[in-house]
C-alpha cells in the first residue's frame, strides 16, 4: 500500500510540476490557451496566466512536505475539478480549445476532449485515494487503542 501511495504521490508531483514549468516558461502561450476556453472576462486572463502555474508548482512542492501534504492533496482535488469543468464546458459549447496543459499548443475539440477529461479524472482519483489513506492513517495512529476501549465492557456499578 505504501508503495502505491508513493507512486501516486510522485506521479502527481511530476505532473503538476511539469505542467507548471512549461506554463511559466511561456506565459504568453498559456494566456492564449486560457482565452480559447472563453470562461472568464478579459481582465482576469493575464493574472490567472501568471498566477496559476505558480499555484500548481507550490502544490506539487507541498506534496513532498508531510506537514502540508493533506492541504496539497485537497488543492490537487480542487484544481482537477476546475480543469474538468473548463474542459467539459468547452466540449458542451463545441469550442475549439488549446489545452494549455503541458505546453503543446494544438487545437482540440469535441470527442477528442474526452482524453483530457479522463486524464483529469485519473488525477482526481489519485488525490481521492491519497486523501482517504491520509485520513485512515491519521485515524489509526491518533487513537490506536480506541476500538479496544469501546469493546471492553465497563464494570457494573454497585447498586
Amino acid at each position, binding site marked *: 500500500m505504501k508503495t502505491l501511495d508513493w507512486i501516486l504521490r510522485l506521479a502527481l508531483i511530476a505532473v503538476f510540476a511539469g505542467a507548471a514549468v512549461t506554463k511559466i516558461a511561456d506565459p504568453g502561450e498559456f494566456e492564449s490557451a486560457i482565452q480559447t476556453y472563453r470562461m472568464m472576462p478579459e481582465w482576469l486572463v493575464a493574472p490567472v496566466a501568471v498566477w496559476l502555474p505558480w499555484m500548481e508548482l*507550490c502544490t506539487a512542492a*507541498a506534496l513532498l512536505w508531510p506537514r502540508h501534504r493533506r492541504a496539497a492533496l485537497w488543492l490537487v482535488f480542487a484544481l482537477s475539478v476546475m480543469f474538468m469543468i473548463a474542459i467539459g464546458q468547452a466540449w458542451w459549447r463545441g469550442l475549439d480549445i*488549446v489545452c494549455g496543459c503541458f505546453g503543446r499548443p494544438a487545437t482540440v475539440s469535441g470527442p477528442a476532449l474526452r482524453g483530457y477529461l479522463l486524464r483529469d479524472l485519473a488525477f482526481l482519483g489519485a488525490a481521492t485515494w491519497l486523501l482517504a489513506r491520509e485520513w485512515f492513517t491519521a485515524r489509526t495512529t491518533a487513537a490506536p487503542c480506541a476500538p479496544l476501549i469501546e469493546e471492553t465492557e465497563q464494570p457494573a456499578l454497585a447498586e
Partner: protein
Amino acid sequence: MPTTEPMTALWRSWLGILAVATLLAAAAFALDPRAQALFANTLAPDEITLTDARLHPGSLLWVDARHGAAYAAEHIPQALPLDLDNWDNQIVEVIARWQPGMRVIVYCDDSACGSSRQVAQRLRRDFQFDDVWLLHGGWSTWQKAEGK
C-alpha cells in the same frame, strides 16, 4: 477541541501555499518582461478584445479589412471582405448582411495595421453603423487564440 485542530492546520497550510504561490507569481511578474507584456496590452476606446467579442450575447458581423489575397487564404468564419481598394464591390454584401442591432467587428493583420480603423470610420460615417468595433490585435490574435 479534537476536530477544530486539524481543520486549523489545514487552513494554515492552504493559506501558506496560497501566499507563497502569490509571492512567487509577483516576483515572476516583476522579473519576467513577457509576464509584464500580458498586462501591457491597453485597449483603444474603439477596440474590443477577442474574448469580449465572443462573449457578446447578440449577433456579430465580422469584417475582414485585409487585402483580398490574405482573405482568400484564410479568414474568421463568416467574415466578409471589405478593404478600401475594393470598397464599392464589397460594401454591397456587408450592407445586405447587416441588420439593426448587429455588432460589427473589423479586423486587419495586427495591432500595427491601420486599415481596420479606416474601414470602421467609413462604416460609421457613411452608413451610420453605430456599433462598430476593431478587434484588438487583429487577425494575429485570432490565429493565436485558435492555436495556429
